């Protein structure tokens, strides 16, 4: 097996390892940390797939910006939705 194929295979083993880790951790009572931990592991897996399998690592910077731009929009989206959900009812609306 040549070097690029080997690397793709190592990434695959890392992905399976992270899957095993997240399933094992889901059986441990972690309380409020369970969610953030599971999502962090999911993000690590996504980074590996995007960086190595989707070859983002070796693409020109311009394409990397286009590929990662939606993360910024999703971030704005998440922030505004949670600002609304968490603050609803706690700010007085004049006339209501």
């Amino acid at each position, binding site marked *: 097996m040549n070097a*690029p194929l080997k690397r793709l*295979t190592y990434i695959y083993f890392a992905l399976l390892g992270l899957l095993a880790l997240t399933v094992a951790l889901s059986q441990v009572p972690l309380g409020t940390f369970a969610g953030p931990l599971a999502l962090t592991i*999911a993000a690590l897996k996504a980074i590996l797939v995007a960086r190595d399998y989707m070859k983002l690592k070796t*693409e020109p910077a311009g*394409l990397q910006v*286009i*590929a990662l731009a*939606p993360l910024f929009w999703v971030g704005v989206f998440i922030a505004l939705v949670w600002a609304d959900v968490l603050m609803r009812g706690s700010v007085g609306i004049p006339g209501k």
Partner: protein
Amino acid sequence: MKNRVPAGLLGMWVFLASEVLFFSTLILAFWVYRHEWPVEFSDGVRHMDLIAGSVNTAVLLTSSWTMALALASSPRWKGRLLVLTAFLGAVFLVIKGSEYFMHARDGMLPPISWSPPQSAPAFKLFFILYFLITGLHALHLSIGIGCVLWARLRMALRREVSETLLENLGLYWHFVDIVWIFLFPLFYLIGGHA
């Protein structure tokens, strides 16, 4: 020009950017409702089959590996690995389908079959979102399987299959994998088994 990106590849990335926003809307809706009704949503997670979900995640990760290998391999191996990738995608759909069947049998397939073990409206909402989001993911995967087999058929018929087309197929396939990477903890892990 150095660093020039083929138009087709750029188009695919812009398409995937819109897909990121599409799925993140659905996931965020699920997240907000889970925040509103944590008990019912945790109950929903406990009704998922963790083994089936874990095996399916492994199957999809393996299909991404075979897809990446296909694009990096010689023409002789490319075709075989593409077929293997499509086959693994089909295995995922069969396992997912069997889970759907079990939920329907147990009366948890709203609105067709709804006689659940607990009657809270938020529990129903969990299952509506589950079927909607995983169903849309399965639809994306089905389209991916069709496109991979179509490309393989063209190769077999000695028609032209450009490098950019294969690269785009790979990008789409890996994207569908990434969507599942996030759906798996949301529906199977968080709040359910600890």
